[in-house]
């Protein structure tokens, strides 16, 4: 990714900005008003994509960690922790937007039901991963420990995803039995928002990888 030219990066940022702009237009002016919850349901169009990109970013971190342990190439370590950091930002967004939605519909900011509890656990695991990685200074060992932690920590992602299917919960279930509980117009807006957030994730990842590469260069030049 760090071989990407500035032009590629700028193009990705431009496409991402345009799709996010269109997504905002669709969410506020095109998506139909939900009959029971009213306008607060529009949070859903950013809550779900934020969670989706969070999962995607943590999956990328998981795969990159496996590749690092197999090949011991620093580019996989850079991809693993860069993607985990972005994943944590998106998971935070998902939790906070969900909390506003919960307050408006359930009357509480937070409740210890399965999806929210496993989200809190997931957030803590990856916040600890990033803290641990920054705290360790010994090169080689730091990357190995981080990779193992990332692989083990990823177990929390499918548990978080399946929580509303495995246990009784008040959290809405949008997709079940191969279909969705949305009207076609709502589903189209949701899919567009997911695409927009995924492009935005790729743009941020290209920026974060460049920073990770520069951090590594500074570290090498200091200790040579």
């Amino acid at each position: 990714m760090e071989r990407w030219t500035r032009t590629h990066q700028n193009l990705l940022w431009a496409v991402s900005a345009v799709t996010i702009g269109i997504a905002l237009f669709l969410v506020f002016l095109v998506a139909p008003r939900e009959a029971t919850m009213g306008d607060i349901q529009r949070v859903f169009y950013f809550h779900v994509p934020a969670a989706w990109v969070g999962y995607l970013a943590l999956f990328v971190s998981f795969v990159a960690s496996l590749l690092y342990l197999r090949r011991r190439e620093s580019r996989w370590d850079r991809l693993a922790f860069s993607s985990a950091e972005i994943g944590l930002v998106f998971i935070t967004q998902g939790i906070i937007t969900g909390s506003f939605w919960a307050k408006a519909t359930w009357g509480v900011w937070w409740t210890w039901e399965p999806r929210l509890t496993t989200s809190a656990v997931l957030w803590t695991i990856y916040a600890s991963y990033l803290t641990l990685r920054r705290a360790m200074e010994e090169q080689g060992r730091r990357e190995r420990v981080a990779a193992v932690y990332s692989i083990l920590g990823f177990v929390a992602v499918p548990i978080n995803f399946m929580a509303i299917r495995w246990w009784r919960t008040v959290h809405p279930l949008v997709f079940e039995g191969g279909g969705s509980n949305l009207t076609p117009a709502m589903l189209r807006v949701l899919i567009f928002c997911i695409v927009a957030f995924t492009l935005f994730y790729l743009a941020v990842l290209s920026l974060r990888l460049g920073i990770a590469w520069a951090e590594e260069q500074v570290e090498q030049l200091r200790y040579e």
Partner: protein
Amino acid sequence: MVYLFAAFLVLWSITFGYLFILGGRQRQLSQQLASLRSQRATPAETPRDRAMPGEG
């Protein structure tokens, strides 16, 4: 509507806050890299080099 706008405000505040931090870190690293590279390009000075003209 208050909760809807509050949720969007927080969402975009987190996004732009994170991008702002990344931008700052990128600038800081570019400066550090340029400084370290220029230090390596300049040969290390010996005490003799640093001596005032006429001292030795």
